[in-house]
């Protein structure tokens, strides 16, 4: 059956008898959770969207320590948030298997950096596995659980976007019934890492690593193909490019390819043995020279003076992702093969094509809030620290409401620093899901250290960007799911001691501008909560939709609506502004912005005829 990499991973988990799964959503890992969330409604699987990645590892670790197979998934930067529990968990260990999936994103298709999370395995001393194909993405999950149970350590399962978002034909295996209940045995002298315990645990971890290495030496996921003097070492998705290139270059009889799917702890003997048979070795791995540096060190230790290369000189780069042509070219170049590149179409002389950046949806409540904030701050010099979510898309003109961004939750923290050292008005934006994820500590800091800024919390009732996952502020009864609590944002903010808190409805433009103006003129920390459901989500859960609007002939062609709001429902036809009734959600913000009151709701009869 044809499966997406992420679906194959979810299937692999079910086949492995996973009983407990937790996550904080993040592209490119989100479809794994989406699938498990759905399955959890129909099976014994426990699944949760945790507040953030750190919490998700903690809950899963406790389940695994109690004897329940658990899995945690997140995007690569999520592991930064989760690194604290993960690294010490390696000391403490688990009982039932625990697999931590990190979805790395070379080329940053949907991320703020392209960090290579294989280093977390090395940093923490945790075994690392990496699939090369969709089939392997499924199979390797089961292997990772077994490995985790052999070593009593969590295992890191690393993917890259091209594994998560590629589809391939997968053969399914049988499903193992999950063990859903566990028990916990008190053992503080092994489970509470005060210094004297931790010193002992570190010794145990190093021993485990050594056992792990022995397993990696014999693992079926570390294999060679071919039997020639030219060596190629590769991992993950690169293996596909290498395998295709070797065939296309017709050098099957000259090369030996070593594919490492269990890549930490590295199988030292296997690699040294491989090097001994090679005249020359090329390492093909996206990201950092993780395998390359280790291979060079092994060659040195084995007193082998063969050339080993990967990312030095004009071969591979640490940047971005690779592709079949690049890998073919580098292999040909390194082993001195004649090679003519396929000539890509010459695109010089082609007219400039207008960019098509993603934009906030038609009727997105963030656009309304951004507009109101800009009006409220008119004439002031501002800094807009932003955060991670759809609202980051506010960075482009005409909205221009994202000036600074580091990571999840950083708006609330960075705003403190800007407010302290500049004389500008600092207005920070954060989404509801991000607020719970890691925005609260920044805001607590602002109160404690008396910083002067306004935090605008964009509460649209979902985690929109990654595909509308729930978060602790979401009303789960709307999804017909019971058994959930719900945390309202306003009482949380008030409980922190913030004096100036207002809740606005952003589609009411004038009132919103007034309320925001008051908040930003307030001396001290103020919070504005802008409450309106995500337009796309509202459609998805089939809420009643408003009537669309149209531009009547009262329009005097100021184009304020178009130029200030940039809502994608507008288009220009024969130099007049029009509204696409199929896109318009009827938020009516443009109608309030139009100085001529020319934008009117489509009458009922015509709306029905649409």
């Amino acid at each position, binding site marked *: 059956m*044809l499966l997406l990499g992420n679906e194959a991973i979810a299937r692999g988990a079910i086949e492995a008898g996973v009983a407990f799964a937790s996550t904080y959503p993040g592209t490119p890992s989100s479809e794994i959770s989406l699938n498990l969330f759905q399955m959890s409604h129909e099976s014994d699987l426990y699944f949760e969207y945790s507040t953030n990645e750190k919490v998700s590892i903690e809950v899963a670790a406790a389940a695994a320590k109690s004897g329940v197979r658990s899995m945690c998934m997140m995007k690569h930067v999520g592991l930064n948030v989760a690194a604290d529990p993960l690294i010490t968990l390696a000391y403490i260990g688990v009982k039932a298997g625990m697999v931590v999936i990190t979805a790395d994103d070379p080329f940053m298709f949907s991320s703020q950096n392209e960090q290579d999370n294989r280093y977390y395995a090395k940093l923490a001393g945790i075994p690392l596995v990496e699939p090369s194909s969709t089939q392997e993405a499924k199979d390797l999950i089961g292997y990772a659980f077994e490995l985790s149970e052999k070593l009593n350590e969590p295992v890191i399962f690393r993917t890259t976007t091209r594994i998560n978002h*590629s589809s391939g034909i997968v053969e399914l295996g049988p499903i193992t019934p999950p063990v859903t209940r566990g028990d916990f045995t008190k053992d503080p002298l092994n489970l509470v890492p005060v210094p004297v315990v931790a010193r002992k645990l570190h010794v145990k971890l190093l021993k485990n690593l050594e056992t792990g290495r022995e397993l990696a030496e014999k693992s079926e996921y570390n294999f060679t193909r071919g039997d020639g003097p030219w060596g190629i070492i590769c991992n993950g998705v690169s293996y596909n*490019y290498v395998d*295709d290139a070797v065939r296309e270059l017709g050098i099957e009889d000259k090369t030996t390819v070593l594919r490492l799917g269990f890549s930490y702890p590295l199988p030292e003997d296997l690699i040294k043995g491989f090097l001994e048979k090679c005249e020359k070795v090329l390492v093909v791995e996206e990201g950092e020279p993780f395998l390359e540096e280790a291979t060079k060190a092994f060659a040195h230790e084995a007193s082998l003076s063969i050339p080993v290369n990967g990312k030095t000189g004009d071969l591979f780069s640490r940047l971005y992702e690779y592709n*079949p*042509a690049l890998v073919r070219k580098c292999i040909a170049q390194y082993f001195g093969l004649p090679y003519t590149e396929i000539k890509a179409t010459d695109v010089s002389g082609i007219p400039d094509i*207008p*960019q098509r950046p*993603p934009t906030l949806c038609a009727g997105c409540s963030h656009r309304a809030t951004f507009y109101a904030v800009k009006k409220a701050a008119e004439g002031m010099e501002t800094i807009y620290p932003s955060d991670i979510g759809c609202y980051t898309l506010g960075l482009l003109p005409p909205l221009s409401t994202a000036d600074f961004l580091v990571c999840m939750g950083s708006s609330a923290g960075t705003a403190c620093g800007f407010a302290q050292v500049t004389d500008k008005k600092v207005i920070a934006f954060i989404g509801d899901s991000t607020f719970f994820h890691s925005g609260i500590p920044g805001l607590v800091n602002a109160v404690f250290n008396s910083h002067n800024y306004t935090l605008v919390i964009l509460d649209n009732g979902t985690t929109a960007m990654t595909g509308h996952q729930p978060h602790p502020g979401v009303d789960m009864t709307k999804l017909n799911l019971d058994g959930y609590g719900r945390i309202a944002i306003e009482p949380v903010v008030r409980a922190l001691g913030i004096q100036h808190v207002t809740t606005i409805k952003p589609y009411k433009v004038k009132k919103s501008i007034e309320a925001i103006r008051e908040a930003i003129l307030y001396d001290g920390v103020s919070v504005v909560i802008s409450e309106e459901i995500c337009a796309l989500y509202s459609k998805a859960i089939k809420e009643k939709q408003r009537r669309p609007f149209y531009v009547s002939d009262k329009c005097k062609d100021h184009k304020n609506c178009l130029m200030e709001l940039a809502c994608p429902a507008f288009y220009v036809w024969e130099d007049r502004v029009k509204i696409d009734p199929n896109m318009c959600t009827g938020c009516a913000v443009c109608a309030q912005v139009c100085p001529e009151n020319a934008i009117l709701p489509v009458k009922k009869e015509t709306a029905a005829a649409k």
Partner: protein
Amino acid sequence: MDTTRLIIVAVGGQGNLLASSVLGEAALLSGISLNMSEIHGMAQRGGVVESSLVFGGARSPIIADGEADVLVGFEPAETLRALGRCNQNTVVITSLAPLMPFTVNIGQGVYPDLDELQAQIRDRTARLIAFNAATLARKSGNVLSVNMVLLGALAQTDILPFSADTIKEAMKRKTKKAFLESNLNAFDLGYQAAAGN
């Protein structure tokens, strides 16, 4: 077995992913191996969606610049933007119905002239099949079937390693029952349009 490399580019919401999954199903039905990869740069927020489908023996799920055998573009400017993925032997199929990028509406950039766009593509590739897929979709009875119209055109070129009938069978399995008839209509209209192009 020979490898066939297909790239599909579209704007979010045009149904590119459904088209790919129909082709995936068709490959499965004919026992042809397939690796497919999707980049949906925030598809639902109006960004560009690209799928690469590699049929036949290769392991790689992606297609490098210059290596596409066929490029199918659901939107003319996006087809032009993807031209670097082609070479002089590539067959290009494009709809000629523009979806204005928002940047054009607010005066950042000019939409390329459609005649010039076709000339540019025709000059640099083996064959260009270009027609207004949106009009044909409307004619088929379902404005959203632009994807099926273009699949029909793709089937007409006979480049893929399976037949038009196999694709239709895959459509039966992968698309919603209520739309099947209009989708099959759309497919036939696209097939005919390519034949006369």
